[in-house]
């Protein structure tokens, strides 16, 4: 597979360049090569050849990133496990993905009950970056996202999917070279992290991460200013946090500023463009199922940007993706008509991990330009204009995006109901005063102390899914269809 060979070549070519900066400590590509080689030896010793999925504790250090490349060079896939996520959730993921071995760089092993390779303790003087042969159908990673029934669903991505993405990404000509300094602001459980480390590593650039105990937005600003970052991919919620301080930000070194994961409002983008006067700004879009992102729109500094409700268009499909917009019967709708955005192409996952039921629901085959083509329903409501640009109108279902994380509101309701013994609950995504999305929970009940409820939720849900506000109401309002009127409940918040 060329992708892994590209990584090998780039590391070998850039030995004296900095590969990473963690908390102001630099590591060269040679350091990185050594860490990879040492972890490979342990993998060969301890993990069977036919065992593909390996757990990875997502710490912020050289060993964790080296583990990813080491696994790939051994033809294995990584399944990220966030050490701060509730144990139940991680255990569910471990079981679902048939994980036997876990790579962990922590001082104290996170999962004492599983076979663990402590990657910090791996050592070798020999560098070996020659990958074992892998094919396009071999898995590179599985990311688990929020599922409606309370169980996370796994999205397996192959090296073929990932190569298709990288190929389409370079085609955008948001160029990275061996002198660039690139931001990696994402948790490794979020697939936007993949492009944030992989693209720089393939070009010999330096990756700047955010230490776990820092406030992200202000730390990003310091990195931008102190290290003159040249390339960033961020979620728009970072901009909402930074907005009150835009006047203090002047970063002429920035070349490319990409946004993904949430709706990007035009007005904030315009203001942001003045903080980074020389940068190209782009809005990219895509679900984990179609490998990181798959549509792109370059913001125009001189105006004439396309928007819907003040939200910037998500643009056109990238090189290796085909998009169509369909009605409820999977028929393509005309120009300007609303419908569900569907994706196809080599970036598309083969389907959810061991979840045939869900696969039947969201994947379908359709005759497209004379060929039987497999499409994925994104759940996003879109319309296409006469120039082929797609306008994002909103979600069809009850999914929300919290700081870029996909959240099924029903998963929160599921766990809240389980904790509350038959009380009726509704989870709401609302927009707060700085235009970021928060989760609210409405309980059909008299007021009571919710500390225990929150404690229970924290045992099963990651922090970003925990409601930030709880309201009580005697009985839920109903809409004309007799369903709970979520819009009315939404007004209780914000």
């Amino acid at each position, binding site marked *: 597979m060329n992708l892994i060979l590209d990584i090998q070549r780039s590391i070998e070519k850039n030995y004296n360049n900095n590969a990473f900066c963690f908390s102001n400590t630099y590591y060269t590509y040679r350091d990185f090569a050594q860490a990879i080689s040492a972890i490979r030896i342990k993998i060969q010793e301890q993990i069977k050849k036919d065992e593909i999925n390996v757990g990875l504790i997502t710490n912020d250090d050289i060993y964790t990133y080296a583990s990813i490349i080491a696994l790939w060079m051994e033809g294995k896939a990584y399944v990220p496990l966030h050490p701060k996520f509730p144990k139940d959730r991680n255990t569910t993921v471990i079981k679902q993905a048939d994980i036997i071995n876990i790579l962990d760089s922590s001082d104290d092993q996170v999962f004492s009950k599983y076979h663990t390779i402590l990657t910090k303790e791996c050592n070798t003087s020999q560098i070996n970056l020659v990958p074992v042969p892998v094919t396009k159908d071999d898995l590179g990673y599985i990311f688990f996202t929020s599922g409606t029934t309370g169980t996370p669903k796994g999205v397996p991505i192959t090296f073929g999917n990932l190569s298709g993405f990288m190929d389409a990404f370079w085609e955008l000509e948001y160029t990275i070279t061996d002198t660039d300094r690139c931001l990696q602001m994402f948790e490794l459980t979020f697939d936007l992290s993949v492009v944030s480390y992989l693209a720089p590593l393939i070009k010999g650039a330096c990756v700047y991460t955010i230490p776990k*105990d*820092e*406030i*992200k*937005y*202000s*730390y990003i*600003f*310091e990195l931008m200013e102190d290290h003159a970052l040249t390339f960033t991919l961020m979620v728009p919620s970072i901009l909402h*946090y*930074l907005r009150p*301080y835009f006047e*203090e*930000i002047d970063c002429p070194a920035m070349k490319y500023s990409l946004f993904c994961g949430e709706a990007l409002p035009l007005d904030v983008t315009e203001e942001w463009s003045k903080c980074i006067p020389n940068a190209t700004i782009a809005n990219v879009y895509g679900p984990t199922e179609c490998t990181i992102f798959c549509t792109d729109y370059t913001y125009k500094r001189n105006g004439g940007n396309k928007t819907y409700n003040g939200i910037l268009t998500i643009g056109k499909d990238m090189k290796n993706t085909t998009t169509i917009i369909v009605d409820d019967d999977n028929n393509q709708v005309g120009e300007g008509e609303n419908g569900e955005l569907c994706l196809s192409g080599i970036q598309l996952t083969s389907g959810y991990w061991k979840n045939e039921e869900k696969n039947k629901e969201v994947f379908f085959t359709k005759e497209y330009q004379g060929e039987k083509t497999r499409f994925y329903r994104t759940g996003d409501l879109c319309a296409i204009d006469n120039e082929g640009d797609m306008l994002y109108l909103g979600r069809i279902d009850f999914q929300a995006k919290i700081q870029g994380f996909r959240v099924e509101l029903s998963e929160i309701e599921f766990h809240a109901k389980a904790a509350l013994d038959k009380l009726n609950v509704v989870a709401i995504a609302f927009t707060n005063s*700085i235009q*970021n999305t*928060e989760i609210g929970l409405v309980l059909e009940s008299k007021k009571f102390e919710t*500390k225990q409820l929150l404690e229970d939720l924290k045992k099963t849900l990651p*922090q970003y899914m925990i409601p*930030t506000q709880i309201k009580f109401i005697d009985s839920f309002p109903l809409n004309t269809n007799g369903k709970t009127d979520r819009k009315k409940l939404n007004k209780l918040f914000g």
Partner: protein
Amino acid sequence: MEVDVIKSKISAVLVSILEHDNFEMHDELTAKDVDGWDSLSHMMIITKIEEEFSIRFKLRDLNKLKNMGSLVSVIQTKI
């Protein structure tokens, strides 16, 4: 302003945003020690503190606010 006065004002801000008083004000207190003090509420707490003391933090100040002690000293330099 006396350190104690500053601290009690901050304490009141925390209670009003986080809706609990399940913390003890000492210099080593960090966001991690306080339930609900995450990046989201941090923003609200910062804004409220700015209002209470009629001050304005610089973006660069925010990274210095590692614990209660440093928060108090940054506030002291501004009032």
